[in-house]
């Protein structure tokens, strides 16, 4: 054992790291809270003969800031990194000492590093609250923009029905104009206000043109029904149950062909609305109809996010049979915050007759 110790000591005799075992004793903090000063404490041997200096800076910054340690109540020595400097991702520091009095031979005192070093300082991560970190990530995804103005227009044709010379369309158009603001006050993530106009014409029966309709009376109310509403306002809350899982709930107020009516819309979505996501939702508008949909969005093609939607609907009038819509969306986001979209699809209430859908959208984030 003694021999081993002799050998090890001989081998390590020249190692600089072991040369000093006194000086400044300081237990470094592992992390710090955002906006709170970091108080550093140290026990200093021979404190009267030297001055201990804290050198700190933001991680990766160039210039060091210096703070001299002071003794607290004849005990530990303390120095603090001010709260204004405690910012993410962190700060870094090292400690040094310098003799308080000049040396007897007149040579200027040399600064000695006591903990860490200027070349390899000690980093201290600055922690944000989980809520703040989530808000940062959400804002990063929206490029720091909280507001969005959005306009979308769509034309949906389920095919033209004819019988005994009567030709009655089964179609509608829809315009949505809305404004959204990302509150990021979790779980309330976003609020939206919007206006919707939806108008169309359909045969006055479940699927076919009603019996008795012909070319002379095809536009009468007995054969053709004007459906939808001119004015519909709505208010939507985007509730983020978790980061990446959100429920959008909408209440609608419409003035349709007959009276004032209510409506609602809900969408449960996992993922990023403008990117990769899966969504399941419904929309109900009194006397207009009900829709249910499933949507898969993918943003794996660079700069061109897309989505495929399968929708089951009886729009634009609840008297119509349930049909299916298969819709493909493609978007083109621009760095300015403008996002353009195009939509094509196929709509049918049975396998015999169907029609195309087409639409366009534009949104602007600011």
């Amino acid at each position, binding site marked *: 054992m003694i021999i081993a110790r002799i050998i090890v000591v001989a*081998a390590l005799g020249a190692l600089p790291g072991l040369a000093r075992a006194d000086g400044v004793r300081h237990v470094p903090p592992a992390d710090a809270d955002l906006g709170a000063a970091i108080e550093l404490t140290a026990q200093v041997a021979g404190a009267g003969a030297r001055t201990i200096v804290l050198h700190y800076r933001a991680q990766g910054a160039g210039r060091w800031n210096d703070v001299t340690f002071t003794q607290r109540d004849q005990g530990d020595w303390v120095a603090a990194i001010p709260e204004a400097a405690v910012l993410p991702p962190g700060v870094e520091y090292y400690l040094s000492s310098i003799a308080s009095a000049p040396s007897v031979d007149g040579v200027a005192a040399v600064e000695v590093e006591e903990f860490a070093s200027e070349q390899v300082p000690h980093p201290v991560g600055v922690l944000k609250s989980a809520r703040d970190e989530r808000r940062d990530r959400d804002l990063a995804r929206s490029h720091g923009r909280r507001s969005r103005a959005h306009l979308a227009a769509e034309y949906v044709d389920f095919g033209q029905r004819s019988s005994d010379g009567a030709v009655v369309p089964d179609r509608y158009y829809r315009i949505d104009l809305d404004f959204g603001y990302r509150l990021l006050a979790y779980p309330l993530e976003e609020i939206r206000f919007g206006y919707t106009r939806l108008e169309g014409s359909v045969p006055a029966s479940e699927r076919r043109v009603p019996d008795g309709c012909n070319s002379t009376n095809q536009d009468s109310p007995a054969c053709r029904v004007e459906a939808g509403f001119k004015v519909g306002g709505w208010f939507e809350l985007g509730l983020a149950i978790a980061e990446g899982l959100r429920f959008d709930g909408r209440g609608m107020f419409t003035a349709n062909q007959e009276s004032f009516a209510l409506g609602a819309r809900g969408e449960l979505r996992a*993922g*990023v609305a403008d990117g990769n996501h899966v969504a399941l939702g419904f929309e109900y508008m009194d006397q207009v109809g009900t829709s249910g949909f499933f949507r898969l969005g993918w943003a*794996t093609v660079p700069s061109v996010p897309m989505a495929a939607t*399968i929708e089951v609907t009886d729009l634009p009038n609840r008297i119509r049979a349930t049909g299916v819509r298969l819709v493909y969306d493609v978007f083109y986001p621009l760095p300015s915050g403008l996002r353009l979209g195009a939509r094509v699809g*196929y709509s049918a209430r049975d*396998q015999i007759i169907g029609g195309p859908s087409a639409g366009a959208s534009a949104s602007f984030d600011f």
Partner: protein
Amino acid sequence: MMLRPLRPLLLVAALALGVGVDHARADEVVGGQVVKVDQREIYVNLGEGRGVVDGATIRFKRPIALRHPVTRRPVNDWLPLGAGTVTDTGSTLTRVALDAELLGQVKVGDLAEIYVVRAEAASPPIAPSPTPTGPAQPMPELDPDTAQVLQVWRAITGASLEARIAAWDGWLAAHPSSRYAAAIRDDLAVLRATHEAMTPAGKRVAQRRLHVEHERPRRVAAGVPVALAFVLVEPAEVTAATLHARSVGQTTYRRVELTREHGIYLRGTLPAELVIAPGVEYFVEATRADGSTSEAFGTATGPVKVEIAPPPLVARFTLTKRRTKLSIIASYLDFATFDQRTDGGATVDRTDRFAQTEVDVLYRLDGLLYGVRAGFGAYGGRGGFAERIWTEDNPAPVTGFQYGYAEAELRFPVEGGPSIGFAGRFYAGVGRDGFGVGVAGRARLGDPDRTNLSVGVSGVEQLGFFTDMRLETWPGPTLPVGISVGVTDQPGNGDLGVRLATELGWRPRPWVQPTVRVSWQGRTATHSGVGAGLGLVFDW
């Protein structure tokens, strides 16, 4: 090579034992080997003829193969095991008594050495060979890094394993960025493994624990290295320290040498790859000058744990490559190609066929939910019966369906075996009778993108059902092959039929795969036909 390392140890040993070396006499170190190990004593192939006498002290050493820290050339060295006393000397063999601890360590083949004092005069010294004259060759200058490594190497030659480990640990703590550090780390791993193997469990004596002061992180971000600092409480007793870290759930730790600074500080970094949810665990082990170690902060069985929040759900939808798969499939099946039956010699219409086209997108997710798919399809068929004859008055029934579908596949990993997956699909569409729905399910054994075996069943209103068993394999790296056997009553809920199909694909690039399918299907031996299909898959 064997004798050169002996000199420093002999000198050290001689000094330690108070034995003077008298070079005026013909003293000799005679060497042999352990040839037999009994329960109480051992035998060495040295006898009276070599000058061995009863009562002499005999030392034992274990050969060890090392690499030179600078040249990396193989070097044979030895490790001291201990000493015993010669109890019985024969002509060629010597019996040696050992204490129980050493007896447990010494093995056949270990080296044995006895310092023999001879009475005869020493041989006249050999005259030194003449030194060649001429200009002296300048010795190459060593850089400080190399010089220090060689200094440690020379100092520990012939030393115990513990001393070697302590010396290199200490050197690494002070020189973590040396160009020799990687090689020394490798050598240390060998030394530690050897030490572990040579140390009987019962010999590991508990020593007083060493300590470090340390403030642990409260929260860390996943995937980011974490700088840690420790303050030695007993700096004089410690030569080096090691951080042992692992992700929560791992069974083994990774070693990270801590850099010693300013005498009392140890600094190191938790590697980013270990900093993953649900957390990272670590403890600090300090090495004393005698090579013994002590856990100084946390323990191997009770490490410090820093919890790491799992990535949010949105992270699973983060944009990455190879997430999306677009599939376009078209197929045509004829059940009556070979049905040549006539009615009174006249050709009859036994039309029985359907065609189907589907386009879908699969988005792959990590974890239990393997993927989500959305797709559109169109289906058209005519007939569906084996024995019916179609006429103008009784035309073949027409079936059609235009639909969309959504699918989710769960995948359960199986340790040591292929994963198991279950996929569920929901259809919504319109047929000739209006809106209809359907469902499908598939159980899969194996990776959906590699060799797998699956069983599926589907039922759609107005169309009928289809069930199949399918094997997909990759006989070549770019050649997927699929074989399936299916049973169906499509189109239009007709008679049962069987379909045998083979698919051959080709993946010339990782992102594209065209596929050809051929099939035979029939409802009876006579009512059968062929089918074909094409597919195109884009994977990006």
